[in-house]
C-alpha cells in the first residue's frame, strides 16, 4: 500500500536553530511531493512542492526540501527557525494516476523563544 512516513512526531527547537524534518514514501512509481504547514487553528497551506527537475526546491518563508529518489525521501529544512514557525508540518505524496494526496502523520514543531 502507498504510505508516507514522517519520523519525527514532535520536535522542540530554540529560535535560530536549524531544522530538518524527515519524510519517506513507499515506492509507487512517479510521484509529486509536497510539504504543507498548518498553523494553530488554521488550514493547510502549501510550503513547497516538487514535480520534476532540480531536486532541491525552495518554498515560502525560507523553507527548502531535497528530493532523494534513491532513498524515497523528501526532507524539509530551514537553516534558522523562528518562533512563528511553530506549527504542524505535513509531508504529502501524489502517486501518479491517483488524484488524491497521501499524507504523513505530521510533525509538530515547537519553537521556543
Amino acid at each position, binding site marked *: 500500500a502507498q504510505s508516507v512516513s514522517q519520523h519525527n512526531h514532535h520536535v522542540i527547537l530554540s529560535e535560530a536553530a536549524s531544522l530538518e524534518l524527515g519524510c519517506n514514501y513507499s515506492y509507487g512509481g512517479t510521484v*509529486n511531493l*509536497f510539504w*504543507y504547514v*498548518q498553523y494553530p487553528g*488554521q*488550514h*493547510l*497551506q*502549501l510550503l513547497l*512542492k516538487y*514535480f520534476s527537475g532540480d531536486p532541491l526546491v525552495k518554498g515560502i518563508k525560507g523553507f527548502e526540501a531535497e528530493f532523494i529518489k534513491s532513498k524515497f525521501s523528501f526532507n524539509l529544512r530551514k537553516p534558522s527557525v523562528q518562533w512563528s514557525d511553530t506549527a*504542524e508540518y*505535513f509531508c*504529502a505524496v*501524489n502517486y501518479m494516476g*491517483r*488524484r*488524491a*494526496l*497521501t*499524507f504523513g*502523520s*505530521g510533525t*509538530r514543531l515547537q519553537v521556543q523563544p
Partner: protein
Amino acid sequence: DTAVSQTPKYLVTQMGNDKSIKCEQNLGHDTMYWYKQDSKKFLKIMFSYNNKELIINETVPNRFSPKSPDKAHLNLHINSLELGDSAVYFCASSPAGSDTQYFGPGTRLTVL
C-alpha cells in the same frame, strides 16, 4: 476573496443526527476533495470529484454522501452521525492538469 470556503466552521451535534458541510471554491478548479483529519492530526482522503463526477471514493461508510451540484461546490452529507465521526473535515481543490491542492479552513465536527 476566499479561495476555498467551508461552512460551518464548527458543528456540534448529537449522535444519530444528519448534518451537511458545504464547500465552495472560486478558483475555477476542476477537481474537489474531502479529507478527514482525526484527533491525531492524520489526514486521509475521503472523496474526490472531477467536473462533478466522482473519481475517488475511499473506504468510507455509506452514511457519508458527497454531492457536487456544480464544479465550484462539493458538499458532504452525513447520516446517522456516530461518535467516531468527530474530526476536522477539510475541503480542497486543484486545477486541471495539476496535483497541487488548495485547502479550505476546515470544519470541526463534534458528535456528542
